[in-house]
């Protein structure tokens, strides 16, 4: 018996921070990066007498997420208290949803190496985030001498998306989380950043012999902060758990911590007893009711989903798989692309896509910037694409024009003029130049006449030099061949 006789069974719980301006149950700001304990209120601080009041925008975003993932939005859902003691949980309980969550029975379709698969989503519920503990005296919680509690994050609105245990490989797990990320970013519900923590994944893994129906004991893996970590953690766990089973030992149901440095998981449970959360309905909040009218309004507000966009890009614009992937994964780039398309007059979408995902993207990366705060406008790119389409500039010239567009409000046509004019494609303009060059290089002309058409390249180079690279190459080439005939 070996690894090959076993299969992975994976379920993933993803927490997404909702893009609200204020927290779930109080009007504290959700901006982060500021001094600790400056974005809190008596509610987050859990002062005596403080009470939660629900943020309506958080409800809207949570419902949009549920709709985007094809869930049944529950007319009535109930908030519950999840009770446990921890310093980053000021009330000593988290307000979450337990037996009556907001959304049920959704799914996400993923694609792994051309194979499509549907991953079930059991439920989505709303809950509040905990604060942060900064451990002092060591790099992590183990060995720390003490910790400092910062409650800035406490109370931020979250949704928890729980998948069915339908995932069977590290690649599928990655595709699932990538797919969720893409959707929540596209519908503008969450920033979807694993590294920054606006998107967090906990992986539940168990193993079983292939063909078996029963589930093995599962372990929960926390602290996977990148797509690579998701894959590495799963690889490690697969080996660890199958080794145990092959040795006749039991897999313990526990929470394990993934360590980026060692790429291993370690047990987080000491001699702690298992948590007894003692869930009960939150008496400070009435049940959340979504009316038919509200649901209809929310459905109308749902932006175009990535899967629909993908189809449109492929069918209508004939974009390549790569171009689609790049445009969908970078939501801001996708928005920019849409804006440019609405502003071009002649350039085709396929050419626009090629330019944005290629040349423009390269420059943006070089400047260490991103599409959400570009110092070049979509109008400028639209004009540039049109200029290339009409032959006003060559591809090479366009690169230079683009550089000049950054941080400048000058229009593309003005920049072209400033550069000494665009591409010259007028044969009458070029003929004189070609005539002169050819007459000055009669030996090359003879070579061409003798059949060495490649020698035309040398002459082409000369023409280009003489016109500061502005002559349109194909026009020049034809002119050279024509004039050669006459000489």
């Amino acid at each position: 018996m070996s690894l090959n006789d076993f299969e992975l069974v994976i379920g993933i719980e993803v927490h997404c921070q909702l893009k609200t301006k204020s927290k779930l149950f109080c009007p504290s700001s959700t901006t982060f990066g500021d001094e600790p304990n400056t974005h809190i209120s008596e509610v987050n601080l859990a002062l005596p007498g403080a009470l939660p009041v629900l943020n309506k925008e958080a409800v809207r975003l949570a419902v949009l997420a549920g709709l985007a993932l094809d869930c049944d939005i529950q007319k009535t859902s109930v908030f519950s208290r999840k009770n446990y003691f921890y310093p980053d949980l000021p009330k000593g309980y988290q307000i979450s949803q337990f037996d009556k969550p907001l959304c049920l029975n959704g799914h996400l379709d993923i694609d792994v190496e051309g194979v499509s698969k549907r991953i079930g989503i059991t439920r989505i519920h709303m809950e509040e985030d905990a604060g942060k503990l900064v451990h002092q005296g060591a790099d992590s919680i183990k060995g720390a001498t003490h910790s400092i509690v910062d409650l800035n994050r406490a109370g931020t609105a979250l949704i928890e998306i729980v998948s069915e245990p339908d995932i069977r490989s590290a690649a599928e797990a990655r595709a699932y989380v990538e797919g969720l990320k893409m959707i929540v970013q596209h519908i503008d519900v969450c920033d979807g950043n694993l590294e920054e923590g606006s998107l967090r994944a906990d992986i539940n893994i168990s193993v079983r012999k292939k063909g078996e129906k029963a589930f093995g004991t599962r372990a929960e893996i926390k602290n996977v902060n990148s797509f690579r970590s998701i894959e590495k953690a799963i690889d490690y766990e697969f080996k660890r758990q199958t080794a145990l089973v092959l040795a006749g030992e039991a897999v313990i149901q526990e929470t394990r911590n993934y360590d980026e440095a060692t790429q291993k998981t370690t047990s987080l449970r000491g001699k702690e007893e298992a948590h007894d959360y003692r869930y009960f309905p939150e008496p400070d909040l009435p049940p959340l009711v979504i009316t038919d009218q509200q649901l209809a309004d929310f459905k109308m507000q749902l932006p175009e989903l990535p899967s629909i966009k993908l189809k449109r890009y492929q069918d209508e614009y004939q974009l390549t798989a790569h171009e689609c992937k790049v445009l969908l994964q970078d939501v801001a780039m996708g928005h920019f692309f849409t804006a440019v398309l609405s502003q071009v007059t002649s350039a085709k979408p396929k050419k626009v896509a090629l330019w944005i995902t290629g040349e423009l993207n390269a420059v943006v990366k070089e400047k260490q910037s991103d599409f959400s705060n570009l110092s070049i406008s979509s109008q400028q790119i639209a004009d540039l694409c049109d200029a290339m389409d009409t032959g006003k500039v060559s591809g090479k010239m366009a690169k230079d024009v683009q550089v000049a567009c950054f941080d400048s409000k000058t229009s593309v046509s003005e920049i072209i003029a400033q550069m000494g004019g665009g591409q010259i494609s007028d044969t009458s303009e070029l003929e004189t130049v070609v005539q002169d060059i050819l007459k000055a290089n009669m030996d090359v002309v003879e070579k061409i006449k003798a059949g060495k058409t490649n020698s035309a390249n040398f002459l082409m180079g000369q023409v280009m030099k003489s016109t500061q690279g502005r002559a349109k190459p194909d026009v020049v080439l034809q002119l050279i061949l024509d004039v050669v005939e006459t000489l």
Partner: protein
Amino acid sequence: MSKAKLSAIELAKKIHQGETTSVELTQQALDAIAATDDRVNAYISVTAELALDKAAEVDKRIKAGDIRSPLAGIPIGIKDNLCLKGTKTTCASTMLKNFVSPYTATAVQRILDADLIPVGKCNMDEFAMGSSTEHSAFSPTKNPFNYDYVPGGSSGGSAATVAARQVLVSLGSDTGGSIRQPAAYCGVVGLKPTYGRISRYGLVAFASSLDQIGPFSHTVEDSAHLLSLMAGHDPHDSTSLQQAVPQFSDALVDDVRGLKIAVPAELFGESIDPEVLASVKHALDVYVSMGATYEIVSMESFKAALASYYVIAPAEASANLARFDGVRYTHRTSEAESLKEMITRSRSEGFGDEVKRRILIGTFVLSAGYYDAYYGKALKARRVIKNEFDRVFHDYDVILSPTTPTTAFKFGQHSDNPVQMYLNDIATIPANMAGLPALSVPCGVHNGLPIGMQLVGKALDEATLFRMGYAYQQHASIPELEGAL
């Protein structure tokens, strides 16, 4: 002392007409507290400077014709589980003995905006858990009519300060009877409004689905005015009612003709002391003479109310008190090596026995495997109790009973037996379970101690309670109690 002298509204009129000033009355209140509180111990802290400063401000406004409410200028006591910005809010607990609140409870803010003058924070059972104020970390409050007896609880201090005439009005809170029972024991009027009438924002939570803030006074009139000042939707409290608030003083009409009274059989027999029963029977006669009628009805679900309450209230409390963990603003133990030790020791040092008992029960009934047997069952019993009230209110306008089975008991009488202590609440608990308004009005005395009767109304129908209470006070004559003072 004449009725007029005990009416805050009448006294306020004197300020507004220039016969006296708020500063004078506030100083009198502070003097009375200074003179008698070493014995009564109604206050944990007296906010003298705050009070006199505000009184001076209010006097200026009144002189300029800016009278913000019918009670503007009147001194008032505030139970110490109500947050008042800049003052210590201790809940009579070691856990919060140094806690200074950075914000004010909505109900208290509305009182302040109406230009009443808070003179101090009143003593109570720790975290509102108790029926005698013996469970205060700052020593008990005494019944002003006999120092060997308890004033009731948990709002013992708020009831005693009004009974002892240190002030004429005060605020308390009621979860299972904590306003009405001390009101009965101290011979004053105490109101628990409909659940959600008054915002709970800033009231330190004991049992979230049962807690309500309410006023103490000598007259039903004052009670109605105070409710008008505090009631109404608060966007800070999601359980606060969005319904409009009627002008409660409109209900102060001396006419109860045709009103139908139901008397629960379960609270009108052997579970009640004979003297208390006699007093309430007499009150019923008064009502009949005024044109109302009454019938004894059976309210079977009352038998389960006590048990249901003692599952639900501690369960919610165990969660509400989890925030007191030594981390952010409470007492913290001076010796702890690890986090769990720090939290456990701080809580064990900070909480008294009764609080610990209730947290333990609450934690137990919610714990794995026991939810259905206890908490789930209690929530069902709650619905049965509510349904029974609804059924009775189909045919009757108000439910009348003794507020408590006995008059005040002696200090230490129930120390060894918590269940005996809890039995004091059998008449008051059902109204909290159903979220209904209830008013306790003094209706007699026995052996120098007061007796109270309780009126329970339909949801949002405080008006009928005020009408019944007001009419009674115009016609009934209760012997004046000299009291220890």
